[in-house]
């Protein structure tokens, strides 16, 4: 028991010391029990000894029945012994039966095993005989072989020696022939062969240089190779050779241990000289033909074919030859400087491209230029050259937009000059259809401008065509479309139109402006048309064509429209002002120059009044050509026949009557009329609406107000007053139809006659009937 417990103890330790991933304790126990049985306990001898020394263990190997029996007899009572005995009998019986079962079960196996063993015994006997025979044969063979090799020993050694000598001789022959061979190569300029031959011999010669004969050969070779290197350098320096030759040359020289850096420099400087020639050729082309008889495409072609392609070649061969970092740096510098010069030439050439007639040529040239530079980017990944090239293209495109804008502006000015001339052409002299009417001029002008704009847009659109390499650059996708074309070109042009229109109002202002009024009217209508439709049309067109995605804020259509409307308004106001002033001037002169005190009795309407009416009529026609009629207030039935209250003093009293003569009799109707008039204050130079009636009202207002102010500065005799009466009646007869509110004309003419009456020394007015007769007659 003690043992069992200590065993368990040790088992416990075992399991504790074994890592957790080893066998589970159950298996371990079975295992150890087996080991235990077979005496393989690794726990030490103590256990083994204890085990082996226990003679009472019925299963142990040292079991001693005598001791066991004695022990039992001593320790156990009789009952126990009986029990023990019966138990023992029972165990023995079961063991017997177990053994019997095992024997029965394995009987057949035992039989067959016995058979097999017997058979094997027979076969081995046969094999033993054959083995004996074999070993005898082998002994004979060994004997023969030893004999043969003994005979051939000498010859073999000789052959080996001979073949060694042969190789050596061939090597020597090569060495001895080397100078001659090198010379021959030199003669034939087969430098590559010479160099490879020399390279093969060089080490050997170096090794045996202490022997005089080899020394000689080495020296000879040295001389020859020196010569060869010289020749190569010469060839390198001459520069007549192509890039390919050159690179070969450099390769050989490198093999001849020339310093790489020097070669780099030489290589590049040589290449430089050839590029110099290319660039000078290009420059000469620039200089020689300021008129540029070669177009830009040819120029770029030449640049690409000569310069860019040889640059690529140089880059390629250089990169093949020199691979270290230093060389790469040199190459970058070299390429950058050359490219900078090339670019400056290209830019100069692009700048000379001022004519805007054919944009496709420029675009194609730029495309080619750009495309060819892509090769460099492939060859020389880190290079800034292609991006610089792109920048040039971008600059060219920007410049182009500016040129187009100025071309458009010039075109606009030219068109206006044409219109001006058409307007200035005498109308009566030529037949009617020779000089186009205002609406025709307007349509043709607006069509001209629109077509020109469209063609410009089409030209500019080439920059973004799909097959153009640079069209997918971010600039051409975004900024070019929105900032360049939309803002820089279209919006700027529309703004320019408005701007220049406004300038017509300012420069040609009061100081005897040279702008014909008809042109003002025409431009005003043009701007108005722009406001209503053209601007949005143009911008929509642009946006569609260029698929503008606005990353940056752009001028909204409404702002442009507002600007156009403002310009239209300004122009129309100015038109009214100019026309009003022309008529005003006539009226003013006619009032200021006449001696109104000593004038004769009026017999006619003065000619100037007829002129005023005529001019107003023609203005009416002119405006009617471009602007709609507009609304006017309803006329009274007898608009043309209206009498003026000459005694305006009475009217004045009525006007101010409420202040201090409340009892004064008054014409309530007249009073209300006057009140109505005064409730709407008349602004003389006020903005007009975009219609004929409003324009005419403005002009007539200005004219009549001038008339009034001039009359107030004069003194009249009796007939002077009567003449004014006649004149005003005449104006009344004809002017009411032009204005929106005839009361306005009534009021102003009323004021004129009233003021004249007040300024009259002898205010005795003319009979209304007489006035009417005179006016009918005149």
């Amino acid at each position, binding site marked *: 028991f003690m043992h069992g417990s200590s065993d368990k103890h040790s088992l416990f330790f075992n399991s504790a010391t074994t890592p957790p991933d080893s066998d589970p304790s159950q298996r371990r126990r079975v295992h150890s029990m087996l080991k235990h049985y077979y005496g393989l306990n690794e726990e030490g001898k103590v256990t083994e000894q204890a085990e082996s020394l226990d003679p009472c263990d019925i299963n142990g190997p040292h079991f001693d029945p005598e001791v066991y029996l004695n022990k039992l007899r001593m320790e156990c009572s009789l009952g126990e012994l009986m029990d023990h005995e019966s138990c023992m009998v029972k165990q023995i019986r079961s063991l017997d039966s177990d053994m019997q079962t095992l024997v029965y079960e394995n009987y057949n196996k035992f039989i067959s095993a016995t058979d097999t063993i017997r058979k094997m015994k027979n076969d081995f006997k046969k094999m033993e005989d054959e083995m004996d025979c074999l070993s005898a044969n082998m002994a004979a063979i060994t004997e023969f072989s030893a004999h043969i090799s003994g005979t051939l020993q000498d010859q073999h050694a000789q052959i080996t020696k001979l073949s060694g000598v042969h190789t050596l001789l061939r090597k020597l022959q090569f060495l001895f022939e080397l100078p001659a061979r090198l010379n021959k190569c030199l003669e034939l300029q087969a430098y590559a062969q010479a160099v490879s031959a020399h390279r093969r011999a060089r080490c050997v010669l170096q090794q045996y240089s202490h022997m005089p004969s080899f020394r000689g050969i080495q020296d000879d070779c040295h001389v020859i190779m020196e010569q060869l290197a010289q020749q190569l350098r010469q060839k390198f320096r001459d520069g007549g050779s192509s890039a390919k030759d050159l690179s070969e040359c450099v390769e050989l020289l490198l093999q001849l241990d020339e310093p790489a850096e020097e070669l780099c420099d030489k290589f590049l400087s040589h290449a430089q000289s050839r590029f110099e020639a290319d660039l000078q050729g290009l420059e000469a082309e620039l200089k020689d033909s300021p008129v540029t008889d070669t177009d830009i495409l040819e120029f770029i072609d030449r640049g690409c074919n000569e310069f860019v392609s040889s640059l690529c070649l140089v880059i390629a061969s250089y990169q093949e030859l020199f691979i270290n970092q230093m060389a790469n740096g040199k190459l970058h510098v070299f390429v950058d400087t050359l490219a900078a010069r090339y670019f400056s030439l290209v830019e100069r050439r692009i700048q000379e491209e001022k004519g805007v007639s054919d944009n496709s040529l420029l675009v194609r040239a730029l495309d080619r230029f750009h495309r060819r530079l892509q090769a460099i980017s492939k060859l020389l990944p880190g290079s800034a050259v292609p991006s610089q090239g792109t920048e040039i293209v971008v600059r060219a495109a920007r410049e182009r937009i500016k040129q187009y804008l100025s071309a458009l502006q010039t075109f606009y000015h030219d068109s206006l000059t044409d219109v001006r001339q058409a307007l200035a052409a005498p109308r009566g002299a030529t037949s009617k259809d020779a000089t186009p009417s205002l609406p025709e001029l307007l349509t043709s002008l607006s069509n001209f401008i629109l077509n020109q704009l469209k063609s410009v847009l089409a030209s500019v659109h080439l920059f973004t065509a799909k097959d153009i390499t640079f069209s997918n650059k971010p600039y051409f996708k975004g900024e070019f479309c929105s900032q360049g074309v939309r803002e820089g070109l279209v919006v700027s042009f529309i703004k320019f139109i408005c701007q220049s229109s406004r300038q017509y109002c300012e420069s040609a*202002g009061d100081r005897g402006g040279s702008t014909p009024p008809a042109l003002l009217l025409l431009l005003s209508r043009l701007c108005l048309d722009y406001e209503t439709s053209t601007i949005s049309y143009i911008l929509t067109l642009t946006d569609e064509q260029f698929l503008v995605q606005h990353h940056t804020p752009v001028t909204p259509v409404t702002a442009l429209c507002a600007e156009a409307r403002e310009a239209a308004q300004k122009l129309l106001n100015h038109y009214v002002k100019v026309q009003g002033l022309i008529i005003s001037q006539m009226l003013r002169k006619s009032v200021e120059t006449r001696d109104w005190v000593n004038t004769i009795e009026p017999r006619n309407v003065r000619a100037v009044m007829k002129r005023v009416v005529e001019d107003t009529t023609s203005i009416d026609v002119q405006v009617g050509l471009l602007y709609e009629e507009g609304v006017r207030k309803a006329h009274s039935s007898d608009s043309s026949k209206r009498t003026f209250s000459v005694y305006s003093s009475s009217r004045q009293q009525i006007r101010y009557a409420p202040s201090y003569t409340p009892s004064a009799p008054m014409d309530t109707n007249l009073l209300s009329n006057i009140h109505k008039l005064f409730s709407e204050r008349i602004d*003389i130079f006020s903005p007009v609406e975009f219609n004929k009636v409003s324009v005419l009202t403005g002009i007539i207002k200005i004219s009549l107000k001038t008339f009034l102010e001039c009359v107030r500065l004069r003194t009249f005799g009796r007939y002077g007053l009567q003449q004014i009466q006649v004149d005003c009646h005449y104006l009344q007869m004809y002017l009411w139809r032009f204005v929106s509110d005839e009361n306005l004309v009534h009021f102003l003419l009323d004021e004129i006659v009233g003021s004249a009456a*007040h300024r009259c020394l002898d205010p005795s007015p003319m009979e209304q009937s007489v006035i009417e007769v005179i006016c009918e007659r005149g």
Partner: protein
Amino acid sequence: FVNKLQYLARIDRARALTAQTAETDAIRFLVGTQSLKFDNQIHIIDFDDENNVINKSVLLHDAGEIWHISGSPADKAVLTTCYSKTSESRVLTCAAVWRMPPEWESGNHESPDDSSNNPQTLELLCHLDNTAHGSVACVLWEPMGDGKRVISLAENHVLLWDLQESSTKATISSSATLEGKGQLKFTAGKWSPHHNNTQLATANDTAIRGWDLRSMSQIYCIENAHGQLVRDLDFNPNKQYYLASCGDDCKVKFWDVRHINEPVKCLEEHSHWVWSVRYNHSHDQLLLTGSSDSRVILSNMVSISSEPFGHLVDDDELSDNEESQQEDKGKEPLQDSIIATYEEHEDSVYAVEWSAADPWLFASLSYDGRLVINRVPRALKYRILL
């Protein structure tokens, strides 16, 4: 607080208005009437600032209708008028120096609605005889002078008069004539208060000319100063080279006479001819214009005034003041702006005038005889003062 007061002249037409230049206590304006039928009068309008009442006196001016009136800077009783006289079917505008009778002030204070039964008559001191030179457009007193020198502009002549023997005798001391094509005629003029009163500016047609009174020669000429007739001009009282002009192109222009090619500034606020332009006598950013669009416009021309913004502001004064915060807000740099448009008139306004006594008060006169007295808005006044 009444911002405006109106006075309606009894006679319905008037063009001539002046402040009584020599009067520095009472706010007083003189209005000359225009009538061919009745006797013409000079209305003396007194504005009682404390009670906001207008008092009126009338003096008879029987020589003819008055086109221009101007008060002596030295003697408040002395004035000149330009009046038209018809003789033998000829109308001629003459000029004369008058004295108001001394009793007018004592005896003739009446309410406006009480008609003056026996108006006193102006006492004629002397004629500025112009029969040789044609109609007189205006008479100008020497600014801040001793009341002994006047200039009259007659047709195309500039006549400098010396008034002697208490203004009872006038002699031409020197004259100049504008020569040129066509009928030249001065429409307006102004005696410059700068340069020791040696300069004069005149307007004829579209041109403004400057004259040196010592040599009686032209010193500058702004051709085409306005698109059309120049109606009036005025010198900036504080900036010697600056003058304002107005005309039939509805514009008011400001000139630096040293650079006459372009106006310094141009206002285009009126919708008809501008007949009168006046600088405020003390604060030259305030400018008054009257136009035949029946409007009077008060503008604040800070940018070209002699009081650039902030010039008068002392920061220390403001710092301990509670109002300084508010004040600072109001002290944002002022832009040139229209302060107010006065629309009380119903007919063309031919004359506007600042009071000689109160720099914040002005009068305007329209053709229908309506005289309106207005004040500069109080807010602006304080902003200028503080």
